[in-house]
Each structure stands twice: as C-alpha cells, then as structure tokens.
C-alpha cells in the first residue's frame, strides 16, 4: 500500500449549456460543478452531501470519467483520466464502478442477474483456467449474501436485493473505487441498514474506496470518514466526519444538520439553529459574492461582494465562509 491517494480531483469544473430558444442566441450556462478539489484515499469513504442541484452527482460522474470536465483534472492512481485511451482506459475503468439509486434501471430486465455479472466478467476478460466466469460470478453473489440467486431476473428481487446485485457486479470487476450515488435512498429503513452494513463490510474486506453521494446526513455520519458539503457547485466545507457533525463551521452545514429529522432528542423542533429560509437559487445566475448569502443568517456586506475561498481551519478542516474569521492563508486571525 502506498500513501498516494487513489483518486484526486483538481479544480474540477463542468458547465452545461442550454439554448434559450430558437430565436434567442444567448445561451443559458449552468456551472454544475465549479472549482472542486478533493482527494480520496485507499479504503476511505468521502461523502458528498448537499441539496439537489448542488452538483454532487455531476462531481461523481466526473470522478469516474463518465463525463468530461470543462476544466480541471481527475487523476486515478496518478494517471490523468482524460489522457487514457483504449486498453489502458478500459483497464482503469474496470476498477472504478458506480452504484445508482434506482437499482431496477441499472440492471437489464431481460437477463438473469447471474448472466449480467458473467457478461461483465467476460467483457473484461477476468476469467482464467482456474476460475471460470461462472465461478467468479457465484463468488461475487456469495459475498453479497445472494448465493443461488443467479437464475433470477431483476424483477423477481426486492429493491434491497437488486442493490446487492449491483454491489456484486462491482465486486466481480475487482473494483477499487465505487461511486455510490444515493445507493440507499430508495430503500426501507431496515433494508437500508443491511446495505450500509454490507458496504462497510466490503470496504474492510477488499479495501474499497467509496465516493458516497447522499442527502441523508444520518447515513453519511455512519458510513463516511470524511465529508464534503456542496452548495451550488462548490465545496463549502470539508472535514473529517466527526468534525463536520460536532464542529460545523459553515452556516450552511449547520443548517443542514439542524434540518435532519432525527429520532434522538437533539433535533426535536425549536432546535438551536434556526431553519434556513428560501430555496436553492437558480444555478444559471448564482448570487454575487458568497453563493449562500441569499439564505445565510450571518450575511454581511463583504459576503455580497467577495466570494470566500476555502480556508484551512486546522486539522484537515477547510471552510469557505467570511464569517468564520479565517484568512485564506490558513489559521485564525
């Protein structure tokens, strides 16, 4: 094992262009991801959290090379993904898999789940004399607790079981990095816990790294090592999970935490932090200065004019907010 991160994303941006209409030549530009930088270590889980429209799914797709960034670089094991082609690309790509929220549309409805897993094994030529593709497939199914389900069709399985199949398929390809895009959001609580436990177990066994995209902070607290909070395409705070939950610095992070409907008494209504008002602004015309200024309870004049940069709050904790009293060069004033 080396200490180099498995995946690094540097100054990643992605814009989408929309035509405003047949006779309007001006384009609407949405910067879905704007200047995002992060690193993901081996056997580490980095959670991306934020409201819908914050750019977390786009970041996940960029990290896998499923989408080309407008600018910025993604490096997987020190290789620039945009420079990889042909066999090299396919070889790296095999180790980078994705699990989606809707498991029924991620699987082929007309193929048995066993055949689908065998197919990816043969496409990537993973079988050899000792291990036939069938053996490898059975192995993968066993690991997710669905041994013997190989002849079933996706529709015959429950949502939780289908999500297990998606995990088995990623394992069969010897994935090292899995981008999980809201993998448990569509599941019932009791099943959700099973899948979260399975993901943790597989990580411990195979040293997997997860980029875990979720809006549910309760699951994130349980599964991730570090958390990046995104707002309108930017990372506004990033820290170790414990830090984010116990010592959140950005007012948006605090608001997100206050909004979590938890069973524990801590967040019963009349919570300490008032709920933030309003909704996510139009990403095509983000507010000037700090993007959160329109909803921020702490907003000052400077926030309306200058966009805060990520500043170091010590101990791997970075935050982009003028009101934390941190200068951009790090350390408190």
């Amino acid at each position, binding site marked *: 094992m080396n200490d180099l991160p498995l995946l690094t994303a540097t100054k990643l941006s992605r814009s989408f262009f929309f035509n405003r209409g047949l006779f309007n030549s001006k384009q609407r530009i949405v910067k879905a991801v704007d200047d995002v930088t992060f690193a993901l270590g081996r056997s580490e889980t980095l959670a991306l959290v934020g*409201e*819908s429209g914050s750019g977390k799914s786009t970041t996940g797709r960029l990290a896998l090379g499923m989408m080309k960034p407008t600018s910025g670089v993604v490096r997987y094991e020190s290789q620039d993904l945009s420079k990889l082609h042909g066999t090299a690309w396919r070889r790296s790509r095999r180790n980078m898999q994705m699990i989606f929220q809707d498991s029924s549309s991620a699987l082929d409805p007309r193929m048995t789940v066993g055949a689908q897993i065998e197919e990816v094994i043969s496409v990537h030529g993973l079988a050899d004399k000792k291990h036939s593709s069938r053996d490898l497939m059975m192995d993968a199914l066993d690991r997710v607790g669905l041994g013997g389900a190989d002849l079933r069709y996706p529709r015959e399985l*429950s949502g*939780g*079981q289908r999500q297990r199949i998606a995990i088995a398929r990623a394992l069969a390809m010897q994935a090292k990095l899995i981008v999980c895009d809201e993998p448990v959001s569509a599941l*019932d*609580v*009791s*099943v*959700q*816990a*099973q899948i*979260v*436990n399975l993901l*943790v*177990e597989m990580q411990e066994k195979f040293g997997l790294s997860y980029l875990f995209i979720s*809006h*549910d*902070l*309760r*699951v994130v*607290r*349980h599964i991730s090592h570090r958390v990046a909070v995104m707002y309108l395409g930017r990372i506004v705070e990033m820290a170790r999970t*414990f830090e984010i*939950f116990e010592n959140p610095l950005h007012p948006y992070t605090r*608001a*997100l*935490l*206050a*909004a*979590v*409907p*938890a*069973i*524990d008494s*801590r*967040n*019963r*209504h009349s919570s300490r932090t008032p*709920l*933030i*008002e309003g*909704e*996510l602004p139009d990403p095509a015309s983000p507010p000037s200065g700090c993007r959160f200024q329109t909803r921020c309870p702490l907003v000052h004049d400077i926030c309306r004019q200058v966009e805060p940069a990520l500043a170091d709050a010590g101990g791997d904790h970075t935050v982009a907010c003028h009101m934390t009293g941190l200068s951009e060069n790090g350390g408190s004033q």
Partner: protein
Amino acid sequence: MSTIKTTTFVVGQVLREIAVPLRVVGSVPEKALLRLDALSVRLPSRHGEVHAVRHVSLSVNAGECLGVVGESGCGKSTVCSAILSLLPDNARIDGRILFGGKDLRTISSKGISGIRGREIAMVFQDPMNSLNPVRRVGAQIADKIMVHKGLSRGAALAEAARFLDLVKVPAARERLNDYPHQLSGGLCQRIMIGMALSCEPKLLIADEPTTALDVTIQAQILSLLGELRRELGMAIILVSHDLGVIAQTSDRIAVMYAGEVVEEARTEVLLKDPKHPYTQGLIEASPGIEPTVGPLVTIPGSVVSLLGAPSGCAFAPRCRRANDKCGRMPPHLEPTSMGAMVACHFPNGWTQ
C-alpha cells in the same frame, strides 16, 4: 359523610376530565374526530387477493397529529385512500370509518364529495404530479374554492391568494399566475398544502408530504404543518416511512407492519420504550445523528407477501423472539402500561 362523597366524586370527575385528553387510544369514541373500526381492505390482483389492510383500528382526536409509520407495502397509504373513498371499485372493504360520528362507508358518493376536500383534505407525496401541468395554479385552487364554498371566480382567486400567504408562499399574488413547472418542488408542496387548507378542513391527511424534498425544505414544510395545526386547530394524519419525520411532528404514533397496526403509543413513550420487536428494530435501524459504533442493527429478511393471510403473527419470520405460538396464533392489539397498545405475544418487558 356526604360532603366527603361529593368531594371524592368531584375530584374523580376532574381527574377523569384531565385524564381524557391524556388517554391514548380511542376508548372515548365521541371525542375522536375520526375512528377506524376493524378496517380491512382486500384488493384483487393478478396473483390473487391482496389483503392490504387487516383489522386496523385507529382514532384521531380533533387537533391531534397522528403519525403512521411503516415500510413500503405495509398498507399505510391504502388506509389513507380508504378514508377518502379513493380505492378502486373492486376493492373489498370491511369495517367502519367513522368521521364525526358518521360512517363514511354508508354515505353516497355525492355525500363523500362534500366531505372529501372540504372536511378531510389530503396532500400527496409528489406535488408535481398532483397539480395539473397545463393550468395556472391560481385557477386550480380557485376551482376547488368555487365548488366547496360557492364563491365567484374573482372572490375565489382572492381567497386562494390568502391561503398561499398562509402557507408562506413568497409573492403569493404573482404565483397564482404561474404554471406548476415554473415552481420548485418545495413551492409546489406549499401550494398543495394551501389548496388542501383552502376549505379549512377538520382533518388533513399528509401521505409522505416531504419525501420528495430536500432536508432543508422538508424541515420548512414540517414546521409549517406544525404551525398551521396550532393556528387552525385541525387534526393531521402524517404518513411516512421515516421515523425521524414522524417523531418530530406527531403526538402519537401508530406503527404498521404487513397491513396491521402492531403498536400504537404516545410519541415519547413509543420512542423510549418500544414494546413490539418490529418497532424496536425500526428505531435501532434508523441511524441517528449521534455517532454510532459498529454496524447498524438490521431487521433480517424482508416484508412478507400480503397474498393470503399468514397463519400467525406476520412479523414472526423476521422476529428474534418468535416461537411456535407466534407461528400459530395471530396476536391482537392489547393495551399495555403507559396507555400503549401492542400486538405481540412476547412484547418487550414481557414476563410470564
């Protein structure tokens, strides 16, 4: 002697009067705004009859918020549809649905339309699909007010604006001219709630009202519902799969499993001292915001099929305490201490 007797009598009466609102289950039917009495719903399907709701007895008092929680397929939405007579014609319904003393099942369909929307209103999960995409939202709200209150279009539109103000839609008057696609999900849900409230219902049924929304917007909508309940004094049945959402808003919680109510208690009691192993599993499996150590507690297996009736307790195949009695005899809801009701042969704290 007689004074003492009178005093005792008076004290007793006072105590009883205090006790009534504290009493949990619908043992005082005349106080209940809505009471379901052994409600059963059977729906035909390709594979046979689905017994979606089994002998559900619940009550909601005026001004109270009842939370109904359970996993998908537990029958919680079917109960809501049954209350509003929205089930398909081929559904077989048994039991009684008493609203203000009248059995809604015996009322003609014309009579129901006078109650549905006016006295009992409903908010659904997906606000975008609940609104007509090709009509302005103001016109849609006004339609409802014109039908139920008999106002002119102009007056109904003014009334619509008033209710959008009430649900804190910013710039309510301008929003009336918008089409649903111009509004965000959170705003649409506010409009749906405003529309539901426009006839000042006595009971609001909210079926997963915040499931499609972001947490920040969810928190806004939940606190809005709480405020409106206090202001308007209406009762709410809040249905959700998220125990956290239910815990924050409800006075009382009914836990459903496989078409049955398995436990019912006041919120604090249920969360602190769950009696049914399913409730306990549900609470333990819900990750909290507090730090956790080790794997999450899971409930093994998955929900049983509702085709045909299980011979014993429906939860038995997933229950760690189940024995052969559970496989043979279905348990019934029975009162426990603290005014809770539980359907389990061996509830937590059970001793022979």
